[in-house]
């Protein structure tokens, strides 16, 4: 997928996609110089904001790991990143069939909690995966991505009886999703 491209989450066989995952992975920065204890830790956080009619009604992030209705789940905060094997260090799972009927859009964001810009982060990526078959729907490389501390990744929104995903990839700045609200509202 490319920026702005939208794909319907209807499957070819007519069934609709039931579960998506947003995965986020990055590599801890290497130690600098002689002093091993002075690592520069990087904490990226994935969040999902649930909207009904452009009003935020619930948020799933590291302090609220499961949406109240249970349809959106965060796998837990990772404060330091992986060692770069390419796996997801944080993930948010969305069970689309259980999302409450009034929620019509879900926006996924990534923030640098420790404040490094994506230029300073190594091997950082985020991706959207069809959880039912593991197929990757979209992938962004964040590393070297510019002097930004956040990115509004993508949104999934209701269309007809199913869901559509739109890749966004808009850069922004902020420590948590709350700082991003002004940047999210225009994409709804």
């Amino acid at each position: 997928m490319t920026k702005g491209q939208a794909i319907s989450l209807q499957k070819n066989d007519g069934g609709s996609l039931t579960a998506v995952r947003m995965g986020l992975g990055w590599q801890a920065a290497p130690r600098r110089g002689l002093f091993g204890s002075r690592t520069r830790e990087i904490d990226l956080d994935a969040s999902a904001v649930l909207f009904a009619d452009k009003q935020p009604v619930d948020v799933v992030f590291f302090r609220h790991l499961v949406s109240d209705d249970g349809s959106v789940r965060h796998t837990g905060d990772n404060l330091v990143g992986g060692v770069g094997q390419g796996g997801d260090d944080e993930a948010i799972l969305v069970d689309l069939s259980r999302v409450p009927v009034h929620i019509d859009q879900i926006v996924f964001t990534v923030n640098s909690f420790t404040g490094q810009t994506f230029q300073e982060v190594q091997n950082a990526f985020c991706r959207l995966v069809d959880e039912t078959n593991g197929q990757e729907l979209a992938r962004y490389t964040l590393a070297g991505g510019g002097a930004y501390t956040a990115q509004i990744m993508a949104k999934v929104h209701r269309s007809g009886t199913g869901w559509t995903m739109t890749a966004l990839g808009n850069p922004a700045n902020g420590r948590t999703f709350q700082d991003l609200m002004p940047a999210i509202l225009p994409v709804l």
Partner: protein
Amino acid sequence: MTAELVRGQNHPLSQSRLEIRVSAGAPVVAAAALGDENGRIHGVEWVAHPGAPTRPGLEVSRQAAADHRLAVDLDAMTEAVHRVSVLLALPAPGSGPGPARFGAVAAPFVAVTGLDGSEIAGYTITGLETESAVVALELYRRQGAWKVRAVGQGYAGGLADLLTDQGLPEAVQLAGAVDEAVTRGLARSVQAPPSRPADGDRSRQPAAPAVGPEQGGTAPQGAPGSVPPSYGGQPAGGPGQAGPQSAYGGTGAADPSATAGGPIDYSHPGRRNSAPPPPPTAPPAPPGQPARPVAGDATGWSMEERLYNQVWGMFEDLARTAAAYRSAVDFAESRMDKELEQALSDPRSRIGGQSDAVREAARARHAQLVGQAREVLDRDLAQLAAEADVVEPALPPAFARWDNPAWHAYRVPMEIPMALRLGDLRLPEADRIRIPMLLRLPLERGLWIDSGRADPVDGSFTDSHDMRRLAMETAVAHAARLLAVYPAGEFTVHVIDPAGSGEQPLAPLTRTGVPAAPPARGAAGVAEVLGRLTQRVDLVQMALRGGAPDALPPGFDTSQQLLIVNDFPHGFDDRAVNQLRYLADEGPSVGVHLMMVADREESAGYGPLLDPLWRSLLRLTPVPDDHLADPWVGHAWTYEPPLVPPGSQILHQVLTQVAAARRSWSR
């Protein structure tokens, strides 16, 4: 496996990169201070606080919050640092509305976790009163290794006093700087999205941790646990956590959507019978329909554990399904209100039938969304009801209602069950579904059967005399359950009934001779029983602290003890009240529990002195009452006590067996 620390207790730390999680009932300031081998803070640069949130190896939050996560890297500490103290303080009164003393908020809970979220040790800071700052924990170096100790030392003079006490010369200035930073932080903080409680309401309840050792690795969620407003007078962190408390045992494993893969089987294929039986799984469902539910369809090492996890899974599913429904309905209503208001304020639509059409459309949109939400809710409720129908009959006695045939087949068990059913929970949306309220055993806190005024949810009126009798009957039913599910001789009940008013409801217990002695009467009886139990707590504590649990006198009764107190504070003098408070504080960790059958109003004369006592007990009611909250979204659940069906002899039959087993055991 998590260690649940009591004040003064320590625990080794095998990792050096740690996180300290703090949950309090109100926004608190979290800080961390470094100390030398004498515990002295050398200067302001040795303290990480909201004004200076990062120090080498330390990171704290910039603002006051009900939940905190502090990062600590012990490897980053210089040689001079021998101690890292975790400090909590209430924000200064000037920085906004909020309590000025810890006694007015729920007991804060602190946990040391690994970076993966696995809890290493937890500590609930109880017993705070006028203090506004407290040293919660300290991590300290002992012979080259780091340990954590539960401290709980409070300071009424706030951070300034606390820092002065730790030898910091600029203590007052630093405390001022912290206040300033916190005030700035509060001004800066972004409002949480609407229609969700503020972070303060989402804190984990103080006693929530460490209940399910099997699932100790479950990452603590910054879980909700708000006590609903309907729950009068009791600070957050009271009874609301009953369910919540055990929930942590189940959340990780209980997700029914997880495949019930079962544990790895290491046994020899020829010795099949020693392996745990494979969990039952739902038969494949016809396409387009949900799978037919099966009892025990959850993870666990035994059928008991699977059923326990399944019940908790149903509890969470019902809570979340209801949350989805309620939020959709709320949204539909607020949208309709907004649209109607707009129609009213738009001059164009005031003319003729146009406004009617707009209003009609708004109502139709509302009805459509509510209808959709209801459809989804009905689908989920049907599934849960079908599951409850198969799970309920499969429950073992400890999890079952009194009317379950499992109780007729009752035999005195050889092992302690993992949990006990304390009653049923239901939601107004799902009147038919009763979720068993399972509390982990051994008990971690006492019980309070509230004989005070009640606002029963069904609107029925119960006068105070009937209420007392009902409360005592409920207490007896709970006590009988506890006695019945413990192996013979491992659970002992004492009764204090100063005025003898509980004689009739106590009859099922006294008639079978199960309690250790006849109910104690009068002031002398009260003093005698309390004296004996106090001495017991002292003795066991001394043996444990001395590291010599074997040093107890020969013939010492090591069973769990339950003290039923009727009509409190009747027959209690000041000394007895103090002994009772001591038992409430110190008893649970050494297996001595209280079951108070009381109307809190009657002891109101003692003032706030008894607040911690009531707070430490799990409040249960003798009539249905909606005072319990779930740990996920904090709905108000209607609690129903486990009463024996009228005319049933089951209590007598069970207690007769218990008494017989007891007699043959003690011979």
